[in-house]
Structures are given as structure tokens and as C-alpha cells.
């Protein structure tokens, strides 16, 4: 545990060691933060500044026009609302269904339990891409293609985007919880479902927080499923919109775009860079707010979840 504390008491070498560790961590932190810093800085640069190699961290001409363009190109109020609604509903679905199902797997014995759990693990391993065509057919038969339901509905049944992982994580937790509380509840005449909802679930805080955040983040960032199931412009979600950003920008800018088409692809990337960075920043705002609000709980959650791979 306290390598630093331990040694600092006895030698000068320890001081150097400590400085080295800090330097190393700071270097790592720089690598981690770099993309986000660049993103923020470039989003307020003018095109002239972006194409100028000598301007790196401090923009010469501060501008918010990139944001104005990005907001427009993303159709942000509509798209953002779609994204937030789908993400929240899907996450709620995952939390309810996965904890319930995991509890069943962890606490009760029933025929085919192990076989079913093996299928849960398989469902983690099989990429969405592998089964996307038959899935599409399934949803067409249910008449829910072109709505947001294909992203939301499966999450209430333990499937959906990486649903298996959450079942797995919750199960890991439930297996380790001592049974005494539940037995006491049972003696007091509490039914299984009520025991689960009122006794077991409140104690899952840490695991719940980690799963909640991961589910939010994964759903919010997913562009693959929306791009398959949604064709109506008003239903688009943020990541999907991001991928079409360049095309949208060219449309909006009219004759400027004609000029942009004549220049090479690299140049075009450079040309839109400020706006793309602004758009990415806008997309990250909800996640960032979420992280700031939950950061403390998340870090604690990670510490307390005490995962073991057993």
C-alpha cells in the first residue's frame, strides 16, 4: 500500500522516487487529457488558426461561430433529446432487468440454470454485427423499426447493448452477499420479490453505480444500432448525427462546400475541424455533467464493488 509513505521517512532517495512517480503520473495524465484539451482548444479556433501550425494551445482569434454551426448541423435539440430519452430508458431497463435476472441466477437453483447462464455469457460474446440482419427482420415483424424501441425494448429483458455484462456483474455481487439478511427477511414473512426489492437491492449501491454509468455511456455513444434501425431524420441520435456531420456541413455552406469539394480529403477534414471539435464537445456535455455529478460515487463504487473473478 504505502510505498511512498513507507520510504519517505528514511531516505533522500525516497524523495526522488516520489518526484519520479509524480512526474510519471503527470505524464500519463497528459496523454489521457490530450485529446480533450485539443478538442476544447480547436473548437474555439478560426479556420486560419487551425491551418496555422504555429498556433497550438492559445487561439489567436477566439470564436464561437464553430459552436453556432455545430448546433445547427447537429439539429441538436431534437437529436439530443432523442439521445437522452433513449439512453435513460435503456439504462433503466438494464438496471431493473439485469439485477432481477442476476439475483435469480445467483440465489436459486432451477433446472437448466447453468445452461442458461452459459447463454448469458454467449450473448456477451456475440457482437451485434453478427446478428444484425435477422434482428432487423425480427423488429420489422414487430413493426417497431423506424422507432427507438429496438434500442430500448430488449434492455427490459436483459438483452440490448451488452446486457449480458450487467447480468454477469450483478451476479458476481449477489453471490458474495451473505444470505443472513435475506433469511431474516424471509422469517419475518417477506416474499422473495419484496426481499429482493427492499433488502438486497439497496445494498447493491456500488455495483449499481458502476453498471449505471457504463450502461449510460455505452448507450449514449452507440452509433451502430441507431444507424441501422432509424431512417427518419427527426429520430436520429447524436453519434449518428456526428458521423454525418461533414456531409451536413457541406450542404449548409452551399457554395463554400463546392470549393471544399475541389480540395483534397485531408484539406476537407482540416476545413471542418473546428466545427467537428465543437460538435464533439457538445455531444460530450451530457456525459461530462453525469460524470461530475456521479464522480465521487463512481470512484467509491469502484472501490467497494470488490470484484473478484471467481
Amino acid at each position, binding site marked *: *500500500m504505502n*510505498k*511512498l509513505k513507507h520510504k519517505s521517512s528514511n531516505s533522500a532517495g525516497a524523495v526522488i522516487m516520489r518526484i519520479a512517480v509524480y512526474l*510519471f*503520473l503527470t505524464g*500519463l*495524465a*497528459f*496523454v*489521457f487529457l*490530450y*485529446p480533450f484539451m485539443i*478538442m476544447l482548444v480547436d473548437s474555439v479556433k478560426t479556420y486560419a488558426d487551425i491551418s496555422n501550425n504555429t498556433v497550438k494551445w492559445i487561439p489567436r482569434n477566439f470564436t464561437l461561430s464553430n459552436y453556432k454551426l455545430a448546433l445547427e448541423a447537429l439539429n441538436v435539440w431534437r437529436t439530443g433529446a432523442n439521445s437522452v430519452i433513449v439512453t435513460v430508458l435503456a439504462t433503466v431497463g438494464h438496471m431493473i432487468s439485469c439485477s*432481477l*435476472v442476476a*439475483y*435469480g*441466477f445467483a440465489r*436459486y*437453483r*432451477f433446472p437448466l440454470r447453468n445452461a*442458461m447462464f452459459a447463454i448469458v455469457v454467449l*450473448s456477451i*460474446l*456475440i*457482437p451485434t*454485427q*453478427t*446478428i444484425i*440482419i*435477422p*434482428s432487423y*427482420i*425480427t423488429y420489422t415483424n414487430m413493426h417497431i423499426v423506424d422507432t427507438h424501441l429496438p434500442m430500448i*425494448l*430488449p434492455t*427490459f*429483458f436483459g*438483452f440490448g447493448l451488452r446486457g449480458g455484462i450487467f447480468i454477469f456483474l450483478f451476479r458476481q455481487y449477489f453471490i458474495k452477499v451473505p444470505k443472513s439478511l435475506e433469511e431474516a427477511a424471509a422469517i419475518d414473512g417477506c416474499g*422473495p420479490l419484496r426481499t*429482493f426489492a427492499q433488502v438486497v437491492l439497496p445494498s447493491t449501491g456500488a455495483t449499481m453505480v458502476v453498471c449505471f454509468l457504463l450502461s449510460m*455511456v455505452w448507450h449514449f*455513444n*452507440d*452509433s451502430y444500432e441507431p444507424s441501422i434501425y432509424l431512417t427518419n431524420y427527426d429520430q436520429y441520435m447524436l*453519434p449518428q448525427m*456526428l458521423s454525418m456531420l461533414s456531409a451536413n456541413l457541406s450542404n449548409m455552406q452551399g457554395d463554400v462546400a463546392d470549393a471544399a469539394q475541389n480540395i483534397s480529403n485531408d484539406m476537407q477534414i482540416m476545413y471542418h*475541424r473546428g466545427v467537428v471539435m465543437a460538435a*464533439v464537445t457538445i*455531444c460530450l456535455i451530457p456525459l461530462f455533467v*453525469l*460524470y461530475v455529478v456521479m*464522480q465521487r460515487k463512481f*470512484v467509491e463504487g469502484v472501490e*467497494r*464493488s470488490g*470484484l*473478484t*473473478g*471467481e
Partner: protein
Amino acid sequence: MKKQKHGAAKRREAITGLLFVSPWIIGLCAFFAFPIFRSLQLCFVNVVNMTDYSVEWAGLDHFKEIFETDTWYIKHFLTSMKEMLLQIPLTNIFAIFIAILINKKFPGRTVYRTIFFLPVILGAGFVMSQLLGQGVQGEAMETVRSVLLPTQIRIYLGPKVTTFFTDFLSLITSILWKCGVQIIIYLSGLQSVSPSLYEAARVDSATEWEMFWLITMPMLTPIMLLNLVYSLVDYFINSDNLLFKHIQNTAFQLNQFENSSAMSWLFFLWAILLVLVIFAVMRPFVKKVKD
């Protein structure tokens, strides 16, 4: 205790359990079983008519086609295997390393933790690939490189060493951004190691190095197993994967759904095989801890 239960109680337990799992069973039937069946079926048939989905048996033709006529599949497969063999161990080594560093108690630890968790929250998936598309990764690497290795030294070392160094740094940068979840998992594993073990070792005047190999590592093996499997799965289902792009193109641009399906199932079987290998290799170590 379970064995002493008689029939009725056992049956009641089974029914309660099944009730808890029932949402998942419904989900399995509604959303999962049919797509799995269809995509497996596609590997062995030719679709004659797309509208009513009539099929004819094709045997192993599609698999033959993959190996005999598709020049890209094996090529991409080998490339992604090579990449995976390099990435998964490196990801885990870095993740363990960072997890151990930020698990120590030192002033400012919270700040570093917050930063190291950022990529998990903000960098997952599409936003990050948008940033990478802008070449941010190369720039980060460029900055790091010029700090670590000044131009004069680079010229002195010659282009081969420089290229190697550049590639290596670029790899590390991209790995660092991807290992957030792994760091979290290792960190929670480290937290569950009882501090009394370290205290006892310290009383016996064990060095930091010995404690790492004799306490930390053995206690981490179950977590490491989990993490290796997670990294593997994450690598396999990542849509940036070259092989996956090829599979996608086969389906949606060449309209060869049958071939595409066969390819992805081959790939999937390979993934399962690798997971089993990891389990087999890790098992002796994991078991030792439990005893």
C-alpha cells in the same frame, strides 16, 4: 443444507428462481433465439428469394469460398490476431500498473483518479473515434516523442529506431485510451485484497517488490482472468476491427449475406476458443489462491 430440502421446497425454489429469470427467458425467445438461429442457418444455405426468405441447402460451400476465393479474410484475420496478441497483454500490463499506482495513498490521488477514469466516461466509442479520425492520436504521440527523444538523438539513432519508437509510442497512446475499464476492474480487485496481508508481510520485513509478486499478483489472478477475457471480448466486438469491416462490407456492399454470416461465425468460434485457452492457462494459478 440444500440437499436436505425435500421435494416441495425444492420445487418452490426452482419456481421462484425461474420467475426471477423469466424476463430474460422472454427476451431470449423474443430478441435473441431467432436472430441466432437465422444467422447460423445462413452459413449453410443460399437464399433463393429475399422476400419470402426461401432457402436451399448449400452445405459447406460458404466456408470453402472463404478459404479458397476470398483473399482478404485470412489476411485480415492474421493482421487482427497479431494486433490482438500485442494489444491485450500490453493493455493489461498498463492497467495493472496504473491501478497499483493510483491505489496508493498520496496527496492528489483523487485528481489523478478522476483523470484516468475520464476515457471510460468520455472516450468510449464513437466520440473517441471521431477524435481519432482527426488525427489527434498522432499529435499526442508527436508531443510525447519530442519530449522523450529530442531530434538530435533521433537523427543519431537512424530512421529504423525512430520508426520503431514512433510506432511503439503511438500504440501505447491508443492503448492507454482504451484501458479505462480494465483499470477500474483491477482497482476494485486491489481494494478487495485485505490490508492485513501487507501488514503481516511488512512485519516480516518483506520488500515492496516481494510483496508485489507474492501478495498482489496472486490475489489479482482471478481479476486478471476476468480482465483478459473482457479485453478479448472488447477487442472482438470492436467495430474498428479490420476483419469486422471486411465482414460488414461483404454483407452490405457485396450483398453476400451468407458468406458474411459464415465469416462472422468462424471469427466467433475462434474467439470462444481463445477464451477457453485463457481459462485453461489461467486456471492453475487461480485455483492456487482459493486453496
